[in-house]
């Protein structure tokens, strides 16, 4: 003790609200108010910093998904709403992140089905949702319009805006009052630039979550860590254009050589370990949301975060 755990910083990480309860115009069972930090995570401060949220990633067409997860989850992956429900009730995720992988089919044009998928997932789970739209600029406009529209009032987190492709997602966020993920390629200045572009088009600061892009551990994660750290330092030093919460998703973790080439019976463990350690490090660098694909990683991360908190006694850790 006796240290200034705010290091003379004056900046605050601006709050972002995800999800809306019935009273707030949505149908979620809770709304998360993330951000608000004034120093680095897991320090012994008053009030104590809040634990990062853990999101489980799911999709609506498992053809485009990791075989490890497909194998682990079995038939569950064929219906996005059951999968979402299980993420909440069995795996214990804080958030569900739905990737609309069905849009990756060649010449995809069934925008109506996108709306139906989002609606049914919203009905299946009461957790706040992250929705990842298309991967194809040609249909971006329609996809994000549809997602935004059917989930109006739910305060979604929409992903993922990039410097070369942010207009549709920004339009959806503004029109239907959602937040969005702004991704830049591991570069503090590009992260800031994208935030400025988003602001200029009309997205409020408290509707932006930064994704500095996360490489898998051993596959460039140290660059991501450094970018996250520098984004957070700049924000705490008072740069409001970087003063937003961060999300980290090391999506390559399940594809790396060590996991791919592991013995079949060890593959799950290997995948979980890789996601787990990457997630821990990203949380230490400041990420407010850790997004993972393997269901088993969810609980492990949540336990770890609980144990990091000063106030945690051992009864909190199972």
């Amino acid at each position: 003790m006796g240290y200034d755990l705010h290091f003379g910083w004056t900046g605050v990480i601006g709050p972002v609200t995800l999800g809306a309860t019935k009273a707030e115009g949505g149908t979620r069972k809770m709304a998360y108010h993330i951000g608000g930090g004034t120093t680095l995570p897991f320090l012994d401060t008053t009030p104590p910093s809040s634990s990062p949220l853990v999101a489980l990633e799911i999709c609506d067409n498992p053809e485009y998904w990791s075989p490890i997860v497909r194998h682990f989850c079995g038939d569950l992956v064929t219906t996005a709403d059951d999968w979402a429900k299980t993420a909440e009730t069995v795996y214990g995720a804080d958030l569900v992140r739905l990737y609309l992988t069905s849009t990756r089919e060649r010449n995809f044009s069934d925008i109506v089905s996108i709306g139906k998928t989002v609606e049914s997932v919203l009905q299946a789970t009461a957790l706040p949702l992250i929705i990842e739209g298309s991967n194809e600029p040609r249909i971006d406009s329609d996809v994000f319009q549809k997602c935004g529209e059917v989930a109006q009032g739910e305060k979604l987190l929409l992903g993922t805006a990039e410097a070369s492709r942010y207009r549709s997602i920004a339009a959806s966020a503004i029109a239907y009052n959602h937040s969005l993920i702004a991704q830049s390629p591991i570069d503090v200045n590009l992260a800031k630039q994208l935030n400025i572009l988003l602001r200029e088009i009309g997205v409020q600061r408290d509707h932006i979550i930064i994704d500095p892009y996360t490489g898998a551990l051993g596959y460039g994660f140290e660059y991501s860590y450094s970018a996250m750290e520098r984004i957070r330092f700049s924000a705490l030093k008072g740069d409001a254009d970087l003063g937003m919460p961060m999300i980290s998703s090391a999506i390559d973790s399940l594809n790396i050589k060590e996991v791919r080439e592991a013995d079949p019976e060890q593959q799950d463990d290997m995948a979980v370990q890789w996601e787990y350690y990457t997630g821990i490090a990203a949380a230490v660098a400041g990420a407010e949301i850790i997004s993972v694909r393997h269901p088993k990683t969810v609980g492990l991360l949540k336990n770890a975060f609980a144990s990091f908190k000063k106030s945690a006694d051992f009864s909190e850790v199972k």
Partner: protein
Amino acid sequence: MIGVNKPVTDVKSAKSNGENHLKMMIKAINHTISYDETAYHLPISFALTGIAVHDQKTALDVFNRTNSNPMVALECITAEKTAADGREPPPYTGFIDDTVIRKLGYSLVDGSILGLALVVGTPQSADRAAALCRELQEKYMLTFLAGDIIASLSRAGVKVGLEYRLIPLGSKPAYGIHFVDIIARVAMMFGGVTPGDIHRLLTYAAERARAIVIVFPGLSDQEIAFVDGMRVLGFPILSLGDYEGGDWISALPDEVVRRGMEIKGIRVNVTAIPIPMGCSPAFEGKSIRKEEMYVEFGGGRTPAFELLQMVNAEEIKDGQITVIGPEIEAMKEGSAYPLGIIIKVAGKMMKKEYEPVLERRIHNFVNYGEGSWHVAQRDIVWIRISKEVVAKGVKIEHIGKLLASKFRMDFPQLLDAVSVTLITDEAKVLSAKKDAEKVYEERDSRIRGMRDSDVNTYYSCTLCQTFAPNHVCVITPEHPALCGAISWLDGKIAYEIAPSGANQPIEKGAFINAQNGEYEGVNKFVKKASHGEIDRCSLYSLMEYPMTCCGCFECIALMLPEVNGIMIVNREFKGITPSGMTFSTLAGTIGGGSQTPGFIGISKNYILSDRFLQGEGGIERLVWMPSQLKEELKTRLAKKLSDQNKSDLFEKIADETKATTIEDLISYLDSVKHPALTMKPLV
């Protein structure tokens, strides 16, 4: 207008008549008024005043508060009429619901609609109306229609409806009022405009709404008053009818859309270049050898030049290509012909000083062509076109098309219109070249004259922070970026094109140390941009607080204490230097964004600057550089030295043929009596 039989409407008198009439009508309101399916009441009135109008009393209140605004009056009157009589039958939409507006607003933010247009009145002919609307559709404008124009379109077989981006608001021009209530709602939904914040509403309408109004004849006085009232929102009113007086812009049918879009700065992005050969940076490195060449221009064989100049928007037509003289069919394979390339550009943000910077891009763009090749610049250009692409149908004209399209594509913010003239007629090339030479000379004298002391704003470059996290380049007229690729003008343009990009303006502020080029403003900027790592930065000193280095420097300058001088080594030189280190060893020592007194990264051109090492006493400190670099700079450096009466210095600067070790360097410098030896000690 003498001799014309058609009645001509005087906008001013019609407007004042109309306003009086509207005033009477709003006073005559006696029913409850409201619109369905909106959370914004009567949106124009609500946006302007924050008051929800629902009866005569509230209507008059808003009308008075807005200084009897004709749009407010017409909104209230139209709402009363709609509430009483119901909506007009299809295809007319009447008042549009909020849910539809949300979708429209989405398309505007999203960029799938570029802007909004309102077209009102009675077209002189159905075909004319159809052509106009087709042009608006092609240019990604969302068009609202009110009045007889709708009937005209249906006679011409043009389909209307949201899916066609042609929205028929109502049978009378007065229904154009819905255009304004849509914009008012878009401003409140998307623009963060709070109801009643009239200032923000007007700013949003003028700067963000990107809307134009096109007026055909046949408007009543009230309608004229309403249309004229939209000028306050910053919408240009373009008249195709018999209106005169007032501030309407009269236009011809085939230019009205372009003019309106130009006034509001709405640009259609060029995405494909219509020429029969590939065009991509991938082709930039290829060369066209003599045996592959169909025809060539310049290169000392024939007179040739290129010139880019800025003109007013009215003086050119965007995309117009003119070839004066023989086309490619009339040229003999394997021969050389004269060529003049004259590019005229226009744009609201374009400035005369950008001309040379843009002109240099001709080089890149011509090389992007699969079968076109370009070297050098100005009146020493050399251009070739390959047999292969001439066989595919490429003509001289297509080089013009390529240039016009690429300029529009790469400088969308800067340029609204580009036209290209290609001259292949020898006499005409020669006479145009004389004029071009005058322009080159004027530019040279302007740039030559440009000093750091002439400007208050320098530019930063943090492009390299990706790998040198705290590096900040400070670029001044006499101190280009250390990579040599970005001059002060480039920095300025880059900032104007991308205001949140890597080149930011730096107000230099007061001098802290004039000799070393240390400024308050620069220090402040560098401190912030280096994330607090660097407190001070002198632009012209290598010893005290030198600028940081990324890793891209063209050369490294470093102090040699043994000879009280400074040596330079360029990237291309692989050998050992008198410092005992090679370029790559040195680069590894000083790069990465750190400040290393005694060492700096510099561009080649900085060596020729009057500010070169000013802090250490200037060019006389220079004791060694590789012969190849010396040769490269020879003409310009020798001239500069002779201008300063130091002609003998050039020979006194050693190179690797004179010395590769510090001992050899000492004895060489002694033998030639290099001035550095007797200068003030560096350390």
